[in-house]
């Protein structure tokens, strides 16, 4: 059903820490690997001049000019935000696109998808990509086939991107529970929504990068301008005259 649930018992989602993300693309690769084995994410001309394929997670890199402080480079992972008010769900004509009442995950039932692409148009965040080989829409499943999978060891029951992140920049949990680790992170670090004016009420939150100090001086700075004295100074002067 493409009507959105009034409320969801849980709001499972991600909290992404832009302060610690180093843009290594490990989450992109882990996501691609796990979901290619699961739902299939095709690649086309992978070793040719114009390689392209379906990804559920992309990492951008931006430079930020900061007033009164050094400029910063911020790497920025972008994937489905599992919105409360998901416009991609209500536009779907077939009911393929849906939001689960139990945990808030937004999914695509590929058996009902006609590949019209309207859900991808409706998403402000570019979270959905049509698979060119299968003709159906692909999106982040929050690794629904990992997080409830009792055949996996308990530590692996989280999304592949979270499990693999070497800097611990990605956190997974229930954002409806104010006591959860992810909710506390959001509260402590000022987690925020992307494009809140779009009215989508995203579940996923981003933690802002910390401002760097105003032009921190290098500890080696005093050594940059040494004046030779004594015998070295005499040598310096003599050699300078040559």
């Amino acid at each position, binding site marked *: *059903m*493409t*009507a959105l649930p009034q409320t969801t018992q849980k709001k499972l989602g991600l909290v992404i820490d832009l302060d610690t993300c180093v843009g290594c693309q490990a989450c992109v690769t882990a996501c691609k690997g796990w979901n290619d084995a699961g739902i299939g994410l095709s690649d086309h001309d992978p070793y040719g001049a*114009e*390689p*392209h394929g*379906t*990804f559920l997670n*992309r990492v*951008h*890199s*931006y*430079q*930020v*000019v*900061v*007033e009164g402080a050094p*400029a*910063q*480079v*911020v790497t*920025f992972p*972008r994937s489905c935000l599992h919105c409360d008010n998901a*416009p991609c769900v*209500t*536009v*779907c*004509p*077939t*009911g*393929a696109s849906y939001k689960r009442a139990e945990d808030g995950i937004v999914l695509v039932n590929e058996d*009902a*998808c*006609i*590949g*019209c*692409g*309207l859900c*991808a*148009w*409706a*998403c*402000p*965040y*570019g979270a959905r*990509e*049509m*698979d060119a080989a*299968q*003709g*159906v829409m692909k999106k982040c499943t929050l690794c629904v086939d990992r997080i409830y999978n009792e055949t996996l060891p308990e530590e692996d029951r989280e999304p592949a991107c979270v499990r693999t992140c070497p800097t611990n920049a990605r956190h997974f949990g229930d954002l409806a529970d104010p006591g959860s680790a992810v909710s506390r992170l959001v509260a402590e670090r000022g987690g925020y*929504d*992307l*494009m*809140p*004016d*779009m009215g989508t009420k995203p579940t996923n939150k*981003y933690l*802002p*990068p910390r401002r760097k100090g105003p032009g921190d001086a290098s500890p080696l700075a005093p050594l940059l301008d040494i004046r030779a004295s004594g015998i070295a100074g005499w040598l310096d002067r003599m050699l300078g005259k040559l």
Partner: protein
Amino acid sequence: MHPAPSVILFSVLSGLGFGFLAFLGWGALTPSGWAAFLLWGLGYGLAVAGLLAATFHLGNPKNALKAFTQWRTSWLSREAWASVATLVLLAPMALSDIFGLGLPRILGQVGGALAILTVFTTAMIYTQIKAVPRWHHWLTPVMFLTFAIAGGAMLSGRTWAPLAMLAVGAVLLAHWRVGDGAFARAGQSLGTATGLDRLGVPSVLDPAHTAGNYLKREMIFVVGRKHAARLRKIALGLASVAPALVLLLPLGLFGIALATVLHLAGALAARWLFFAEAEHVVGLYYGARG
């Protein structure tokens, strides 16, 4: 947005077809025999050709029947219902005209209203999308409806058809004027898209991927400003001014045919621009609009 030929053909042909079917249903013309067969055939032909073109836009058309299930929330599903209901409801009226069965006109009047409703649902598929600010405005359905009604008036030889054609031009101009400022008014930037506006002014350092992807092909279409300005003049001239002038000349059926060809060419240009000039906010992540 990528101006896909299938969607452009769909909205132009079905818009004109349903517009004409509305006038036939309302009894603007009361043809009989072969004339009725040809006129109703033209209306049905345009509408159905448009709908068929739309299915070429689907990646997985075998599930197309499922598109009738979600009418409660989805404008695309509502359009599926409205278009089929119109075609089914008007069929007895068409047969009645062709074979002189004398069925009550009310059937055609209801069917005609449904034909206009179908055009409205088509327009709402685009209008509802907040992520494309140029479309997200009440002028979008006004534009689609004006095209349909003016086209129907032209094909059914109404004396006021030239005025309706000029109205098409006025609505196009208004939609362009309002649309040109729509993205800025939506207030989104790379700063709000990433939330980095709370830190400073962000810009793209490196692309997220070096080659293209679905998002870039489908939603980040860049059209040159000069190119667009020229096409606007062509669209305005062919869709509105030229058919209005031709319809004023005493050319009879030939005049209507000529005006229709000109109007269709202009409508295709206008609809190409409707897609090509529409910017999706996802472009911000890729550095579109600075």
